[in-house]
Every structure is written in structure tokens, then in C-alpha cells.
């Protein structure tokens, strides 16, 4: 992949994309919008007001900001998705939607930093596509996780059919469950079928009998805290050099601990379907569509059989 030869200034003028930090100021340089339709900025204000009604005060310094596009763009349809990939943007455009609500980043970093991406060909392609299709992309991560009941893990719990197993003392993303006794291998296969997932991986003794299952976040600190109440964790993305090594040693030292590693997308995508449903009463006259970002990975036997 070769970089385009556009200069930084020329590219900035051509792309018209907005980073998280400069969305408002760059938006004022765009052509005036005279439509009386609901704008993306007004849509976000409506979402923020609903969050406030549900007890989630808006934190302006977080990651939930406009990433691409002019907030004054009229909203012709709304799409929710786990990740603002180029494929999701293409599918949103094919639906005629102009407002994309993504849970995870658009520009491949936690804060969607774009200063080092000006010459990146993929950044150019993505922002050019968005501009050509009047797309506005806005992130809904931190505040969505704070809605109660926590929607991402709620969706995962429903996908697993585990509502009846939830421990009444647990809440939020890190719910834990008391399931009927079964081996780790059996549990892993059951989860693999229920999600479904093609990239599930496991750390721990397959013959270990488990009853207490927790949902962990990505941090090894959270994993350690969840192990206080769980034998095995469902972990939608952890850092292998910390968490996997911790569990390897835990098992070797006699602790009965294990983890079922699933793709981040598998663990949280259902929550953005919940998000689409949550937004429908806020925008009764607009089409709202959930688009799957799709599980990115394959593990055997799928990959080998695909040869």
C-alpha cells in the first residue's frame, strides 16, 4: 500500500474529516446546511438528554465525540454498529443512512487520534468515502456502558441464555453467573454454539469442572478481581502478555482458574443491537438499523477446512 502524495494542507482541505478534538471547529468551515431536518448534532443532543434522564451525566472530555463529518448534516437514517469499519460505513451508505453510531473507534486508536494519519492511505479512503456519502460518524462508548442495566453484557447474557443464572449480587459489565456444573471444554463448546463464534479460544484445564463464570473486561486487574468470585471468565479481548500468562501461572500454582477468550466484537456486538432498540423511541420518524461489524477472526477447524 502506497501513501498518496497529497500534502498535509491539501489533504486537510480535501478530506474534510473531523477528528474527535476538532469536529466542531472544522464543521464550521463546511458549506452551510439549510435543511430543517434533524441534524446529527441535534440527534446527539437528544441521545445525551436521554442518557441524563437515565442517570448518566455527560462527560465532555471522553471518547464519545464526532469522528467524521459535519454535525449539521441532516439525518436521513441511523445505523448502529460495534465498530466503525469501512465495510460498516459502506453498508450504512447503501441504506441511505447519514448518521453512524459506533461503539468502538473509527481510526484505530482508543481516542481516534488522527494527527499521525493524515498521509495514511486508509485514513484518506475512509474519510473520502464518508464525505462523498454525507456520513457523520459519532462514537457512543463510555456513556453507553454506563447505562443501567449495562447493555453490552446484558446482550451477551441474553445471547447465552443465562438470565436465570446471574448472581444477584453482581451487576454492570462484570456480572457473574452460577451455572450447572460442567467441564471447561463443555462450557467452551456451548458458548461457541450460542454466540455463535468461530474464534473462541481457551486457557485452562479442559477437564476442570466449573460453576462460577464471570464476564471480564480487557484489563488484567479486572480479571484478577473477577477471579475472586469466578472459576472461569468469559473475556472479550484481553492482553495475552498479561492475562494469559497470569492464568497460566494461576493454574500451575494450584488455583482452579481459566478463561474463555472471545473476540471483542462477539462480546459486545449484541449491545449495539440493544442500542438501536434504545434509540427508536428517540427518533420515531427515522429508520434505525443495526449493522453487524462481523466477527473478524477464524480459528480451526474453520480456517483449515476453508483451504
Amino acid at each position: 500500500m502506497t501513501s498518496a502524495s497529497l500534502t498535509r494542507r491539501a489533504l486537510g482541505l480535501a478530506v474534510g474529516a473531523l477528528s474527535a478534538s476538532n469536529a466542531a471547529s472544522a464543521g464550521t468551515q463546511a458549506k452551510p446546511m439549510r435543511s430543517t431536518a434533524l441534524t446529527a448534532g441535534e440527534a446527539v443532543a437528544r441521545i445525551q438528554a436521554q442518557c441524563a434522564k437515565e442517570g448518566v451525566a455527560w462527560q465532555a472530555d471522553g471518547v464519545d465525540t464526532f469522528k467524521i463529518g459535519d454535525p449539521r448534516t441532516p439525518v436521513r437514517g441511523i445505523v448502529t454498529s460495534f465498530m466503525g469499519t469501512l465495510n460498516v460505513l459502506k453498508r450504512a451508505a447503501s441504506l441511505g443512512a447519514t448518521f453512524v453510531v459506533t461503539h468502538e473507534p473509527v481510526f484505530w486508536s482508543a481516542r481516534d487520534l488522527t494527527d499521525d494519519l493524515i498521509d495514511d492511505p486508509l485514513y484518506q479512503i475512509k474519510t473520502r468515502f464518508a464525505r462523498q456519502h454525507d456520513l457523520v460518524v459519532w462514537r457512543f462508548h463510555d456513556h453507553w456502558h454506563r447505562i443501567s442495566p449495562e447493555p453490552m453484557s446484558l446482550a451477551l447474557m441474553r445471547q447465552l441464555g443465562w438470565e436465570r443464572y446471574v448472581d444477584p449480587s453482581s451487576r454492570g459489565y462484570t456480572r457473574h453467573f452460577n451455572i450447572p456444573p460442567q467441564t471447561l471444554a463443555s462450557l467452551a463448546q456451548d458458548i461457541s454454539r450460542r454466540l455463535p463464534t468461530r474464534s473462541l479460544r481457551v486457557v485452562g484445564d479442559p477437564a476442570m469442572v466449573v460453576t462460577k463464570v464471570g464476564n471480564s473486561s480487557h484489563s488484567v486487574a479486572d480479571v484478577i478481581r473477577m477471579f475472586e468470585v469466578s472459576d472461569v471468565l468469559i473475556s472479550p479481548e484481553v492482553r495475552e502478555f498479561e492475562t494469559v500468562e497470569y492464568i497460566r501461572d494461576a493454574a500451575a500454582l494450584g488455583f482452579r482458574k481459566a478463561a474463555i477468550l472471545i473476540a471483542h466484537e462477539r462480546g459486545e456486538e449484541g449491545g449495539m443491537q440493544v442500542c438501536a432498540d434504545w434509540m427508536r423511541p428517540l427518533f420515531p420518524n427515522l429508520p434505525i438499523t443495526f449493522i453487524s461489524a462481523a466477527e473478524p477472526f477464524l480459528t480451526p477447524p474453520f480456517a483449515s477446512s476453508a483451504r
Partner: protein
Amino acid sequence: MVTVGEVLARLKGSLGAPEADPVAEGLCAGLLAMPVTGVAVSFAPSVEVLLKAKAQGCNVVLADAHPYFSYDTKWSNLPGVMSTVTASPVVARKRALIEAEGMAVLRLRSAWRAKYPDAAAAALATALGFSVLPGSAGREFVIASCGGVVGDHFARVQERLGVTAPRLLGLARQPARHIAITTGLLPPSNLRKVLDDPRVDTVIAGEVVEWEAGPYMQDAISSGRRASLILTGYAASLEPAAAAVTSWASKALSDLLVVHIPGGSPIWAPMFGKGAA
């Protein structure tokens, strides 16, 4: 009798630079004054590796990973991480084990990588049976020409590294002609450098952050780039580098026993690995 401090000094002297992160690297467990019986090298100073090292007459382990899971200044320094890890029962029991066995753990990861930027990738390429094309010096990845389809190289990763659960992002049936190989956690900036070579149609790395290089690769594919990414797993990608470190350390410690103890990968896939048994 050579002490741990003398071993550390000799290795540092051979690298010609101090460790980049004196908190998480250098002497991570044990005492500098301890006499050394032998040095074992592995990706991680796991409990299993520590016990194997002791059984083979080595009371020092030289590793890429930290014994107490403090890997780097980015992830391990996130709020609350180190305090929680340090207070965990696993760390307490492992610390007691290391003390009881009279062992020491050394890390020189940053300095070794700074001195030999492409060595870890080259070691992985060799372990996978690839011949590296010239031009990789100074980079964290190497390029090899290959044939067949991506799925063939996925199977190669499984067979040659002994891992049951690598992951594939892309198409197994896609032809593979040039493969870029790197180790550990692949950031988007390095993936971009790899994809800047228009010949590359397959990338092998250890792990990706799934909101960083993972979607970057998805976007590259969606933009029309015919490329796939094979993830070996973090530990599996770096165990061949431990073998390379063993050869390097043997020269500086020619009067000592220096052995490579592969730690293997603890990750398995339920339908293909141990769980299928």
C-alpha cells in the same frame, strides 16, 4: 562463582545499552549477590519454566516477559493495574516459590530489541521455515517469498509452532506470494509499514488490539487490498526469539550453562485442541 549481578552486567555490556525501563526490566526477581548455577532462557518466566529450569540446574531465567505480569509501561501502567496485580494471590504464591527455590529472573527485552530490531521476526521466520528476503535490517518485520494459499501458512503456524489456536483475519483460500513476519503485539503503525510493501499479501504476527490493528486490517481488505493476517498468539510468536537470545547469551556467558526452555502456548481451541480430546 559468578553472581546474578555479574551475569546482568555482562549481558548489558554485550548489548552496550542499559535497559530502557529499569522498573520492569533488569533484575525482576531474586538477588544480585546470588551465585549462578546456570541460565535458562524462555519467552516467559512461567512457574512451569522456573521449575524446569531448576530441574536442569539453572537458577536464573532470562525472559521476555516479567515474572509478575508487569509487561510494559503502556498496559501495565494503566490506573489500578499494578496495585491489583501486586496484591494478587498468584503473585504472592509465585514470589514465595521463586524465593524458596533461590532463583532470579532477568529481563533485557527493550535493550536486546533495540540492538537487534529484526532478530525476533527473523527467528520466527526461521522457526516457520521461511527464507527471509534481504532488506529487513533495522525493521521489526521481515519479508519472505512463499507459495500456496494463506490456509497453508495457517497450518504451517499450527504445525511448526505447535499451537492449536492461531487466528485468521482474511481468506484462507487467497494465494500467498509474499509474507511479512513480525512478533508480539502488532500496532497499526507497523501494520501500515508492512502493507506499504505492495508485494505483501500475508502477515504473521502474535496479537493485535482489536480496536487498533484488527480493524485496520479489516479496512485494508475492505479497501481492496488482497491480504490476510495470521495471529500465532503472543507467546508463540516470541518463543523462537528466546532461542535466538539463548545463542546470543551463550557467547557472553560462555563459562556458564545456558539453555533454552520453550514454554509453549497455554491457549487452545475447543474443537481442535485439548478440548476435543
